[in-house]
């Protein structure tokens, strides 16, 4: 098609929108409504995901190594029988009763952990570091107790261990199980059920979002198709003349497709504007009761939202007009008159 034809037909498409302005307004209005529902679904999904991210601090697994303290104070089973003193009390723990004797051996286990899949990071936590943390958090000012705990190297009851951050919450429980099989790890502290619930919520949100968007997209398509059908009916005279003077199907189709595309794009712009205003209003209202940091800023998903709206507008505009035109273009002049 020549450039002059494209220019002429683009102008015709835009002019048609103005001539059929009531129908255009009705279509834009309904499409905007569909897009707003989609937009609200996106907004909710964004904020819920953001809120879940906070809880996702649970993607941490603590493991404790099989060291002397795990045998003495923990629930690790000694690898050899521990001798008893003459008075019946427990004797000295032999070195072969446990697996981790020094930092090198602990770091070797850390290296083993790093080899697993789904590991984002592993941080070696020595028993000294753990003790400091416990004293900081729970025993501040209790100098007597602190003194007992730090009296000598055997007075710290805690074990060496590692703080592991997992990649995917979906595989959280599986990773916890794998950690249990590593030799030298005696305790695995994992919150598998919370992780599973989080994954279930995220999955449900994703599925619901997909269906909401799919159904609304279908509705948008029907709306645009209907507009085009009404436009075609109103312009059957013009189309019959076009056919009589030798217009190709592409020539007849283009103004309608352009009309569909413009309706789609205008709707996406209007819907985007509404979403921005809605977000501002929500921030103002919720800002009084919640901290602003708990609401996802509009700009973080604005571009994606606009792209989604524009895609919905374009797809429904193009597909809607092409579907409708296909049915009409097979008709001849006299059949149009009979419509």
């Amino acid at each position: 098609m020549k450039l002059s034809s494209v220019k002429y037909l683009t102008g015709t498409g835009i002019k048609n929108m103005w001539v059929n302005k009531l129908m255009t307004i009705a279509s834009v209005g309904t499409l905007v409504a569909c897009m707003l529902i989609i937009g609200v679904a996106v907004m909710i999904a964004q904020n819920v995901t953001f809120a879940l991210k906070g809880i996702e601090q649970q993607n941490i697994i603590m493991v404790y190594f099989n060291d002397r303290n795990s045998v003495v104070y923990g629930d690790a089973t000694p690898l050899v029988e521990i001798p008893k003193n003459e008075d019946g009390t427990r004797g000295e723990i032999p070195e072969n009763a446990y697996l981790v004797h020094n930092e090198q051996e602990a770091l070797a286990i850390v290296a083993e952990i790093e080899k697993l899949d789904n590991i984002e990071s592993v941080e070696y936590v020595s028993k000294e570091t753990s003790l400091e943390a416990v004293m900081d958090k729970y025993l501040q000012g209790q100098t007597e107790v602190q003194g007992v705990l730090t009296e000598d190297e055997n007075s710290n009851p805690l074990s060496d261990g590692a703080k592991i951050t997992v990649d995917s919450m979906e595989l959280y429980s599986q990773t916890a199980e794998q950690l249990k099989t590593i030799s030298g790890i005696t305790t695995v502290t994992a919150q598998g059920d919370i992780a599973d619930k989080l994954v279930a919520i995220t999955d449900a949100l994703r599925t619901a979002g997909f269906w909401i968007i799919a159904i609304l997209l279908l509705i948008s398509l029907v709306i645009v198709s209907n507009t085009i059908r009404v436009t075609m009916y109103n312009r059957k005279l013009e189309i019959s003349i076009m056919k009589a003077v030798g217009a190709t199907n592409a020539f007849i189709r283009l103004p309608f497709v352009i009309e569909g595309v413009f309706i789609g794009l205008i709707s996406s712009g209007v819907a985007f504007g509404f979403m921005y205003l809605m977000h501002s209003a929500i921030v103002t209202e919720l800002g009084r009761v919640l901290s602003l940091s708990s609401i996802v800023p509009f700009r973080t998903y604005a571009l994606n939202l606009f792209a989604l709206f524009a895609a919905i507008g374009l797809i429904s505009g193009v597909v809607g007009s092409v579907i409708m035109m296909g049915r009409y273009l097979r008709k001849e002049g006299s059949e149009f008159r009979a419509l």
Partner: protein
Amino acid sequence: MESLQNPATPLIEFDGVSKTYKGGTHALQDVNIKINKGEFVFIVGSSGAGKSTFMKLIMREEKPTTGQIRVNGYHLNKLRSKDVALYRRTLGIVFQDFRLIPTMNAFENVAFAMHVTGASSREIRKSVAGALSVVGLSHKARCLPAEMSGGEQQRVALARALVNRPEMIIADEPTGNVDPNMSYEIVELLNEINRRGTTVLMVTHEHQLVSDFDKRVIMIDKGKIVADNGDGNGGVV
């Protein structure tokens, strides 16, 4: 495409053409006809005689049930759907009900037929002005159809049919919706266009007009050619 340079080559050729519609109506039966380049032919017949089917077959709105149709070098039986548009550009069609777009003025209505061919704005301005001047309506170029009489509207439709310089004008009862004086003027205009070399095919049931102009007349009745005062070679049957 066959050559059109030889004036003896028929511009329209119907060879054993019959058309039966889905309901079983036999609209045309065994029609054999030749119309040469440069002829002016009246197609006459009563309502339901088969005139409209004859015109629809030429415009390729319908295909024959049996027989062959060749128009303007195109073999209409074999014409592919995508070539129909190109074929129609070689025809200029005038309808009884004018078929002007009410929201476009006379100039735009005529230009519309040229936009379809992808003509440039400059070509369109020049040719549309020329076509409107041929039909004597240059002064009404900016008028909407509603601001013109029936006769004027039909002349705009004629300008639209002429603007792409077709080989042939097909006029389907062009005087059906205009007063008798204007009818005469329109046929006179078609006659003038014919004198300039364009073949004209006009369907009518106005016997007075037919007798006023001494032209070839083909009469159709009950789907058959019942009279033809020319044989496509200039002679009278």
